[in-house]
Structure formats: structure tokens, C-alpha cells
């Protein structure tokens, strides 16, 4: 399968950011830090393990447990809902909106999503790797796993029921994992991206091109 890397890069360059709404993760009383205003630069988590939180955007307190709401990505503030300061907000209420400029890694991932063979979730459910593969992925990374048609790879968990799920598609290396154990995956959303041997060259080209051609804003 051939694809046009230049065209994809140009398409992303035309709209090099995404606007992200930061919402209250749960109900509680909201407060905003002083100085947070539209136009301010904000940073996302940093550190080798993303252990350093991003810029503080708000605080939600329930039952005397304050929870810091930090910026999930770097970017620039577009709006702060300061009218909610000191009031009780329900889960999901928009607190802050910011513009995130795509990094090289994100551009790479977007293009690769079009290049790799995507194995899609058959149903909306929560997914896990089977224990044997899970350990391998956690210790050596996803690319240590090669998959082939019929391999039992996942456990699909829905409504407290668990069903084994086999991989179907071309043989290859598990190149990208698109789900986490903590959240449901919608039907037809990708679970993994597999790189068949004949695509390795093109995938490497994507990585090189993005690294040389994409200029990060911050």
C-alpha cells in the first residue's frame, strides 16, 4: 500500500493545532488560579515518566479533597470560565479552553494511523491484553510483540462479562496501542496498529520526514 506523505503533512500544516476543552473531572467547588487568562502559554506534563504535572488550570474540591486540574498538553489559553470561580460545578462542565499545537510525535502518530493496519474494536467495551502479552508489552514495549491472524490477544470486558478476542489481519509487529485499560473504546475505534513487514520502509520514512519537516511551535 502506498500513501502520499507530503500530502498528509500539508494537510496537517494547514491546521496545525487542536482546540481542547478542559472539563471538571468530577463535581465540586471550582476555583481558578490568579493570572490565568486568554493568551497565556501553558505547559503539559513533563519528565521522563510525565511525572511533572502541567500548568495548574483550576482546582475542584469535594469533601475537603482538592483536586488540581492541570493542563494535559502544552498550548495557549483561549478561554477561562472565571464566572464559575467559587461555585459548585457538575462533572463535565467546561472550565478552560486552550489551543494545542501538534508536536512531531503527534503528527507522526496521525500519519501512521493511516499507514498501519488498524485492528478495530468490534464493540464498545473495555479492552485488555491477555495477561501473557500484557506483561511482555509492559516490560519490553509493544514493538516486542509480533502478531498473526488468529492469535488470542485481547480480553473484551463489557457489562462485567469478559470475552476473549482474537486478532485478525496481516502478520506484523505491534507498532501502536490506541487504548488504555481505564476507558471504554467505541465500536470501530482502533485498538492497535500493526506494521506488516512490507510497510516497515514506509513507516521509517514517515518518521524521518516528520522529524525533519515539522516545526514545533513551542
Amino acid at each position, binding site marked *: 500500500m502506498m500513501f502520499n506523505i507530503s500530502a498528509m503533512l500539508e494537510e496537517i500544516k494547514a491546521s496545525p493545532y487542536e482546540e481542547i476543552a478542559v472539563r471538571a*473531572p*468530577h*463535581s*465540586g*467547588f471550582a476555583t481558578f488560579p490568579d493570572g490565568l487568562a486568554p493568551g497565556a502559554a501553558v505547559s503539559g506534563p513533563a519528565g521522563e515518566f510525565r511525572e511533572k504535572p502541567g500548568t495548574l488550570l483550576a482546582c475542584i474540591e*469535594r*469533601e475537603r*479533597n482538592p483536586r488540581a486540574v492541570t493542563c494535559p498538553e502544552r498550548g495557549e489559553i483561549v478561554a477561562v470560565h472565571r464566572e464559575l470561580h467559587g461555585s*459548585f460545578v*457538575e*462533572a*463535565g462542565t467546561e472550565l478552560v479552553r486552550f489551543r494545542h499545537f501538534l508536536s512531531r510525535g503527534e503528527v507522526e502518530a496521525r500519519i501512521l494511523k493511516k499507514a498501519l493496519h488498524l485492528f478495530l474494536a468490534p*464493540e*464498545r*467495551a473495555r479492552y*485488555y491484553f491477555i*495477561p501473557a502479552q500484557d506483561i511482555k508489552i509492559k516490560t519490553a514495549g509493544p514493538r516486542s510483540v509480533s502478531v498473526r491472524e488468529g492469535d488470542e490477544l485481547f*480480553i473484551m*470486558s*463489557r*457489562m*462485567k*462479562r*469478559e*470475552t476473549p478476542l482474537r486478532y485478525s489481519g496481516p502478520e506484523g509487529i505491534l507498532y501502536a496501542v490506541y487504548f488504555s485499560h481505564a476507558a*471504554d473504546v467505541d*465500536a470501530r475505534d482502533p485498538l492497535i496498529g500493526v506494521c506488516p513487514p512490507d510497510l516497515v520502509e514506509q513507516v521509517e520514512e514517515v518518521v524521518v520526514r516528520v522529524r525533519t519537516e515539522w516545526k514545533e511551535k513551542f
Partner: protein
Amino acid sequence: MSGKQHRILIANRGEIAVRIIRACRALDLDFVCVYTVEDAESGHAHAAAEAGPEKRLYRVSSYHDANELLAVADAAGATAVHPGYGFFAEDYRFARRVRQRGRSLDFIGPSWEVIRALGDKINTKRLARSLGVPTVPGSDKPIYDEMEAEKFARTIYEFQLQQGIERPVILVKASAGGGGMGIEEVHDIDLFRSVFRRIRNYASRQFKDEGVLIEQRIRDFNHLEVQILAERGAGRIVHFGTRNCSIQSTGLQKRLEVAPGFDPSAVRYRFDAAALLAKVTEHSLAMAREVRYDNIGTWEWIVSRDGAPFLMEVNTRIQVENGVSAAVSRIRGKDGTDLIAEQIRTALGEELGYDQDDIGFEGVGIEYRIIAEDPDRNFTPWVGRIETFRPPERDWLSVYTHVPSDRPYDIPTEFDPNLALAIIRGRDLEEAEARGREFLDALVLEGTSPSGDKIRSNVAFLRSMTEHILMF
């Protein structure tokens, strides 16, 4: 007790939230509901939103976040929390916290001490054994180690062989589980280890606790329940009879319940069914007295083919199936029985106002759990859009549902695909069964999955099972 004094936060969803709203209205109590984004179209959310100009509906991130629920309780001015079933209903830490926090609230359920004593299968077994109440042979503590588990399983296997059971079966279940989740049978003892590992992994993922219980599987059993209600402060304890919950899916989840538990007037049993019902009721009451039980609760029993009862567990909460016991109970001086309303009244400190002698039983009740699932595929949940849910209207029928009747409803995948409860009343078993079939035939349930397949439901299964009610 009045609406001005009390405001109940209903910390649950779906059908049970709908029934609690109904009970609050019957008692003239104010209420507040919570919902998650997946439940925005649920009947309980609509009922709360449409209950009046005052805000009664709050969106939360999860029904599992105690901090958040209590913050909502404060923001909404709630004075009590009703946990429904599941979620926090049997969590004694939550019940204790609700009572002991700075702004104390009433917990609509037993006191935390009682939940701690009986909410755990292992504690219950130990207490039962100390009172001479028979329990299912098996482990009385969670087992984590594979070798220890296999050794114990082989002991139970040998025990069954000694009893003359030709094909012994062992039950492996997640210690922290409930509602039939995380249970598997082992027929070949040499395969025990693989089942143990599977259940342990499941328990770890679903309950964050790898503990596993091992029990003898009682074959061809009847699953009986005794409905108990008690006043606060070690007051009066009464029972609302027995019910039979033996008709279950392959995953040991209840699908059809009948009250009373056995009906010797209509069915011939190999044992003295009336004496057996009296015996399990007396054992249940004795345990309730021992722990100074103080709200609604259910004692769950299995009865072997030869009529031997074994206590399984106690549910220290309201249940899905309480309504079927209410349907055949009459409290002297009251119009109909609503066990949720009785539960709320007693939790708020009211006296029962009646004794056991004031409770009468008449007729037979059948409860159907209408569920979107495929009985031909091991009861796999079906997910899709319900386009029409239209139960018939009859004076012998009550239907409780969170599925709206005036618009389509997308079944959320985050929860069980239960659609409705239907409770049928009849003068006797024959009439109840006939009415049950009439209800199922007249029920209109239509829907399609995202891939365009027609809805799968358990209606046909329930119809076929109606032929076997209360038969051993």
C-alpha cells in the same frame, strides 16, 4: 416525617432509582438524583429533571466516587443517602462515613456495624456456623495461593465422592464478587488450576482483589430467599416471606423470581416444603436477631434436591427482586406493600407500626427481568437502540423501567443491559403463570444494533421458563 424534613440523595441509576423516586413520592419525601453522561436519557434522570422547578438532578463523573456523591449531597441540601443496590449499598465504610462525617446524613440501609458483620460472604458463613445454621461446604476465607486452592478443592471433591455424588462439581468464585459475577464450575479436578487462574485474574481486574472462594456445587438446587425487615435500634424484626430465584442465566444470574419460595398447594415436592420454608425463615430471623439487624435484608439459601437448606449469603440492601415479595404481602391497615418505602421509613427512625401477625400473604407473584441479551449465545449482553418499549397495561401488572416510552433509548455499555422489571400477581400459581404468558406475549420490544441487527432479548427464554416455575 415529611418532605420538609428529609431530602434523599439517590446514589444509583436506572430501574432502582426509578423505584426509589416512586417510594419517596409515596412518602411525600423530597429527593435528588445523580447521573453520568452515559445515563443522560435514562428514565431516572428525566424523572428528576421534570420533578419541579427546583434543581434535583446533578451530573457526576461516576456512581463509584464517594467523595463526589457526598459533595453533591451537600450542594443539594440532602439529608440522607439511598444507595440502592450495587455500588455503595454493601460498603460498610461508606455507610459509616455517611453517618460520621462532619455534616452527618442518614444512610438508607442497615447500620455500618451490621453491614460489616453480614455484608461479607466469609463473615456471614462464620456467623452462621456459630449459630448452627447450615452453610455450603467450602472455604471460609479467601484463597490467593494456587497450591493451597488446589489442595482445598481436592478435599471438597473427595468429600462429594464420599457423599456418593457420582460427578462432583466445584464452584470457584471471586470472593469480592456479587450478583453472579466471577463464578465458574469445575467438573474435572485436573482442570482446577486453569479455572482458578482465570477467576483470580477476573477478580483482580473487576474487583481489585484476587481472593477466591471454593465451594461444593449443589446440583439441581433451588435458590430461596427470605425477606427481612427490622427497625432501627434493635427493635422489631419481621419477615415478608420467601421467594424462589432458581431460574437463572448460565452465568448464575437471576432472571425470574416467584413468591412464595415453594407452593405445596400446587406442586408436589419430595420433601415437606412448608416445613422447609418455616425452617429457613426461622434460621434467617435468628441470625438477624443475633446481629441486631436494623433495616431491610435478604437471606439467600440454596436447597438441595432432597430438601437440605444451606445458607449462601446475606444481602444487606434492597434487591432487584424485593417487589415480588411485596406483591404477595399485605400489611394490615395499609394499601399495598412497598418495601422500599418501608426501608426508607425505618432507616429514618420511624417505628414499623406493625408486627409479624399484621403481615399476611396471598396469591403468587412472578417477577420477570426483561434484559437485552442473547440466551442462545450464553446470555451475551446486546447493545443497541431501543426504539419501542411498550408493556401492556393490566391491573395485575406493575412494570418498573428506566427506558423511556416516548423516545428511542441507547443502552449504555457501562452497565448491565437490564431494561425493566415486570411483576405479575395471581390468585394462585396457575393464574399467575397464565398472566405471565399474557404479559410476555403482549409486550412490544423493538430495537436495532449499530450494525442493523434486530434486538435480542430474553423474552422468549422467560416465556419458556414460565412453564417450570416452582417445579423442582
